[in-house]
């Protein structure tokens, strides 16, 4: 009893310390408050964890929790005494003389003066050990009210303005209408507005002209194409399996279309999550929800693994890593071999996640490459009918053969030998009748007719629809074990499915699978939890992605990593407010787009001003709209649109753009797995290009189309000479320039001016017309080119203008 109360007092004492740590202590004087998460934790993890981490704890010291770090050491001293630098052994050791033998860390460079100073100030300030923002529940926040300014009624503006005012900055004025319509078109549809669309918007005097435009674009089927691309990057969508054969995955395009269609139909995001993770286990299983489970079939797959168990573990790891990043913004993959070094994710959480996926079969095996991944949409009735007809046909075929053999046996030896070769059919047609009597021949003819009828009946059955999906599961999967140091050959403890501990939610209860179940029912539980409004990361992660693709970067820049090594949010309250708003609006993205795009924040101009540039050069506070380069797909699609040939047909199987021989020559079988598409197909939007992992379209790659083997949270935006080479020399761009030349020539007496109107959607300036006219003249007079050739060169210039490639 006495012991128990002592223990209780101890725990209370610890609690008090912890709570003290929670309420961020005020700073005295001019000392800057040290940020534990940003400055201390990574330092400890990097330089101290090797010996004083959760698994090591040398000398009785562990830096993985505040309790452990403040505990008495084996030596009797204390590493950290909050507020008392002199009593803190940590400071003494990191500042010890190199020769003293006391210096920490014992290996590598000593800590820098700046690092030591940060540690000192942190201890002085009370050794705060705050929990990471993303691992705390969403805050219930209200938009701030501004004292000084009136800037829009949109709550987003209130959040943005509050931060700007605190920094004594002004938001930029709105961009002009021509800029805005271009911004909106590319943002929502990935395509440029036509000149007519620009003019109509500019002239629209209605007070809600902008709102009308946003509505119209959200209703466009091209919206789904553009926004699907963002999700496809995150889930590393491709249509082949990589490795030696890099073979095509049948029906992968249906998953791509599923994403496009879901967005176009404004399917609630929570439903979108549920369908991809457990579309085969929902209360209402639909064709759509089955196709959604194609999610499990998108990764790379080794069809000839040297170590099959390792390959299977790698396949699962790819799934866990992608799922963690895509839906939760967590780098769960880092806990595969050991506890996560930074985030509070123990190794067992990783394997608990693997246990949720225990019924997920491998993509395939070498003998059967489709059984696990191709779902057949047929009714039991259809299947039975098909089987019955197949069996009847086989029976009749056997009868037919035996009748033929009666005749063959009467033939010469040479002909009998022929009957065993590929010439059998010809032989039978030529001679069989001669060797059968009339009643035999009659019967034979009737048999052939019967066979023909059965075959016709079989062909009349509806064709089976198939989809890339989680077609086969293991309803009673074996136990999941921790793999010691990530090694699939060294199994540790058994792990049951549970949610990562950092969420501090109860253990899931998983209903036992029925005896005839086709899956284990675990993924449904996981999906419901991820898609729950109570999940503190799901809504934050998706609103951040939406924000990212409106503004060019997320409120949290590291969109796949909300953990402690990710970037902190620039506007944390806004992020939480938006997340809650999404949940309150049925998880639908279109209302969120509408909310964001009708803010003043979205409509600001991208112009610079020296004061703001000085104060906030990276625009973290959003005093302007960030200019951006077109994405790889947008460059290609806009060029096709300018050429007047863009085929805007929505949905369907992928197409193969023409690749040069040089590019195909990089394959071990040049041309293998690459098809021919008609010119009309080749003029389709880039989202429909066949994604072969080992053979990416070079124009897109030059403009930072990502490697598609692992999740891509944000594309690079590089500027490099290969882009200029592709834009000026590629067959594709020269073809578009030629088409553009033809187009403007046909449409107008002034093709130079017309080219500017078509490509940039505005009237040309005097200087542009002069530049174009001059170039065309010079090419004709000094270079002996025809007027047509010269105009083509000018059109190539226009397609290379920065104004074409960048959005204000």
């Amino acid at each position, binding site marked *: 009893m006495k012991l128990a109360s002592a223990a209780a007092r101890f725990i209370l004492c610890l609690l008090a310390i912890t709570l003290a740590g929670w309420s961020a202590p005020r700073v005295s004087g001019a000392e800057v408050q040290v940020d534990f998460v940003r400055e201390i934790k990574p330092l400890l993890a990097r330089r101290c964890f090797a010996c004083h981490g959760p698994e090591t704890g040398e000398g009785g010291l562990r830096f993985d929790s505040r309790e452990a770090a403040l505990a008495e050491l084996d030596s009797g001293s204390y590493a950290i005494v909050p507020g008392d630098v002199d009593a803190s052994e940590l400071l003494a050791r990191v500042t010890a003389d190199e020769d003293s033998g006391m210096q920490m860390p014992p290996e590598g460079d000593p800590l820098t003066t700046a690092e030591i100073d940060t540690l000192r100030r942190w201890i002085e300030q009370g050794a705060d050990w705050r929990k990471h923002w993303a691992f705390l529940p969403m805050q219930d926040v209200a938009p701030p009210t501004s004292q000084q300014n009136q800037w829009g009624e949109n709550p987003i503006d209130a959040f943005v303005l509050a931060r700007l005012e605190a920094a004594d900055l002004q938001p930029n004025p709105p961009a002009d209408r021509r800029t805005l319509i271009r911004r909106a078109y590319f943002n929502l549809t990935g395509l440029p507005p036509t000149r007519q669309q620009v003019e109509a918007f500019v002239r629209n005097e209605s007070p809600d002209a902008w709102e009308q435009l946003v509505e119209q674009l959200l209703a466009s089927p091209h919206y789904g194409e553009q926004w699907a691309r963002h999700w496809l990057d995150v889930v590393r969508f491709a249509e082949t399996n990589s490795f030696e054969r890099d073979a095509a995955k049948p029906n992968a395009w249906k998953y791509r279309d599923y994403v496009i269609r879901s967005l176009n139909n404004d399917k609630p995001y929570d439903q979108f999550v549920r369908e991809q993770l457990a579309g085969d286990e929902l209360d209402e299983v639909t064709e759509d929800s089955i196709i959604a489970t194609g999610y499990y079939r998108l990764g790379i797959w080794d069809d*000839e693994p040297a170590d099959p168990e390792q390959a299977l573990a790698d396949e699962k790891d790819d799934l866990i890593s992608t799922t963690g990043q895509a839906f939760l913004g967590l780098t769960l993959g880092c806990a595969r071999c050991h506890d996560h070094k930074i985030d509070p994710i123990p190794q067992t959480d990783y394997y608990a996640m693997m246990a949720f996926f225990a019924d997920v079969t491998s993509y395939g095996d070498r003998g059967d490459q489709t059984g696990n991944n191709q779902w057949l949409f047929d009714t039991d009735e259809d299947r039975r009918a098909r089987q019955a007809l197949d069996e009847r046909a086989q029976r009749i075929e056997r009868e037919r053969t035996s009748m033929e053999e009666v005749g063959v046996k009467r033939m010469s030896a040479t002909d009998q030998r022929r009957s065993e070769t590929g010439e059998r059919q010809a032989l039978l047609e030529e001679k069989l009748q001669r060797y059968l009597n009339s009643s035999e021949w009659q019967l034979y003819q009737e048999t052939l007719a019967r066979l023909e009828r059965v075959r016709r009946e079989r062909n009349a059955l509806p064709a089976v629809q198939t989809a890339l999906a989680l077609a086969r599961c293991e309803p009673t999967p074996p136990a999941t074990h921790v793999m010691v140091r990530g090694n699939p050959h060294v199994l540790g403890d058994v792990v049951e499915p549970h949610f990562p501990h950092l969420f501090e939610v109860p253990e899931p209860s998983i209903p036992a699978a029925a005896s005839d179940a086709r899956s284990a029912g675990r993924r449904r539980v996981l999906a419901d939890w991820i898609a729950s409004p109570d999940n503190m990361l799901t809504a934050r992660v998706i609103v951040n992605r939406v924000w990212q693709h409106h503004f060019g970067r997320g409120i949290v820049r590291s969109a796949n990593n909300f953990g402690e090594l990710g970037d902190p949010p620039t506007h944390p309250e806004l992020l939480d407010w938006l997340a809650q708003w999404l949940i309150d609006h049925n998880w639908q993205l279109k209302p969120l787009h509408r909310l964001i795009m009708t803010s003043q924040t979205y409509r600001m101009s991208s112009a610079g001003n020296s004061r703001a540039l000085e104060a906030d050069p990276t625009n973290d506070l959003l005093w302007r709209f960030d*200019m951006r380069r077109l994405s790889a797909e947008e460059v290609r699609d806009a060029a096709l649109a300018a050429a007047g040939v863009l085929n805007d047909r929505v949905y369907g199987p992928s197409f193969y753009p023409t690749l040069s021989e040089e590019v195909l020559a*990089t394959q071990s079988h040049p041309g293998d797995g690459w098809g021919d598409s008609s010119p009309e197909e080749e003029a389709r939007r880039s989202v429909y290009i066949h994604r072969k992992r080992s053979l990416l379209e070079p124009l897109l790659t030059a403009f930072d189309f990502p490697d598609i083997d692992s999740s891509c949270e944000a594309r690079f935006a590089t*500027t490099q000479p290969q882009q200029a*080479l592709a834009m000026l020399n590629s067959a594709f761009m020269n073809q578009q320039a030629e088409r553009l030349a033809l187009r403007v020539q046909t449409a107008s007496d002034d093709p130079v001016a017309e080219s500017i109107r078509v490509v940039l959607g505005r009237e040309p300036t005097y200087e542009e017309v002069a530049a174009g006219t001059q170039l065309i003249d010079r090419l004709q007079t000094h270079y002996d080119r025809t007027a047509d050739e010269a105009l083509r060169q000018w059109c190539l210039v226009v397609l290379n203008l920065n104004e074409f490639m960048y959005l204000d």
Partner: protein
Amino acid sequence: MSKPSSSAASFCRRTRREFLWESGCGFGGAALAAMLAADGLAPAARAADSSRALAPRAGAYNGKAKSVIFLFMYGGPSHVDTFDYKPALVGKDGVMVDVKTHGRGGHRNQGRIVEPRWKFAQHGECGKWVSSLFPHLSTCVDDIAFLHSMTAESPIHGSAMLMMNSGKLQSGYPAMGSWVNYGLGSPNENLPGFVVMLDRTGGPISGAKNWSSGYMPATYAGTVFRPEGSPINDLSLPENVDRPLRREVLDSLEQLNRRHFDARPDQSDLAARIASYELAFRMQQHAPEAVDISGEAATTLSAYGVDRAETRDFGMRCLLARRLVERGVRFIQVYSGGAHNDDNWDAHGDLEANHSKHALETDQPIAALLKDLKQRGLLEETLVVWGGEFGRQPTAEYEVGTGRDHNSYGFTMWAAGGGVKGGVSVGATDELGSAAVESPMHVKRLHATILRQLGLDPNGLSYFYRGLDQKLVGVEHVEPIHEIV
């Protein structure tokens, strides 16, 4: 990111990644910076600053090597028929032995010995045993360090190729050449820093995955260079366009782009983009010049075997490798063998025919390359690496014939130049050559050695991705092979 290997700067990833997101880098990054300054695009100073961070830079150490030429013997040459002399196999042809093997044919515990089909003899001052497949290369052994106890994780081409090139069995990770350019930048802005030259028969299995930059920007990816025609994709001017005409087009474009930029003077990307067109224009001149061998002496061409049918292709690529090294290209990979079956070193059927062919095609050119580099004083700063994705088994694959299956349990690679000691041999396989038994060396140790010779810290050079400081050698500490330096 002053130095990617500096842990303090790199751990908090932001500096690096932010830079990578926002500016051009790698190939051409340095040049952009210089041109921005030279062209007086003054307000672009910020871009220039960030670009300069990827200018050629020092590694963590003073590296002996400045460039790497990786001679990739695709398909997997047999070590016991080339450089790993096994007297125990001599006279034992057809004898059944107990030996554990793992190849494309799976795991086996027994096999029929295929006696090496070539005689071995000692060469050089070091007395290295080399088979008669390499009459020319055997004269260079005093410059070569042999690694006889290499091991890889996979005996299957696709994954083993990726492991040799990127340190991982799966695709999606940056190739070694990408890492080297990420770590050291590229001194010649007019050429790519990572060049790949393929065999005339085609690319290797998995094609471009072998020189992909994975999660790094595509600017770090290997550029396929062709000896004939247009060396780089989209490099040559379209039909009916010549350089003066293109100049007119560029002038017109720049005039309009500058006007656009003048209205947005703080947008450094626009300035960088204007500069990139000039850089591309220069590359169009310099890259063809790099592959133009008309100025090479007849004796040089003859030494490389460019004048003979059997050695012409590989000789040409070796010669180009030297020319690229002279021009500051960091990492050059030359493939011997392409496509499938006997188009490369994958001798499953007729070992004799296969290896005779590929050795004949490469022996003289490689020896010429080593000697040429040495004579020009370039060998000291050029690390030449030779080897395949694995070796071959000492026993036969089928009931009849000389074909050998894959062997990742033990095989030979070699390195020369770039501060590597010559005339040494490290590690050993067992007496049959079936597995490494003395100082086994994982492929990652070779990677660590290459980085270390270039002055990079293999355990420090990292790139933040997916929540981790990713490294070429992986998360576990990997030691370079100290015995050969």
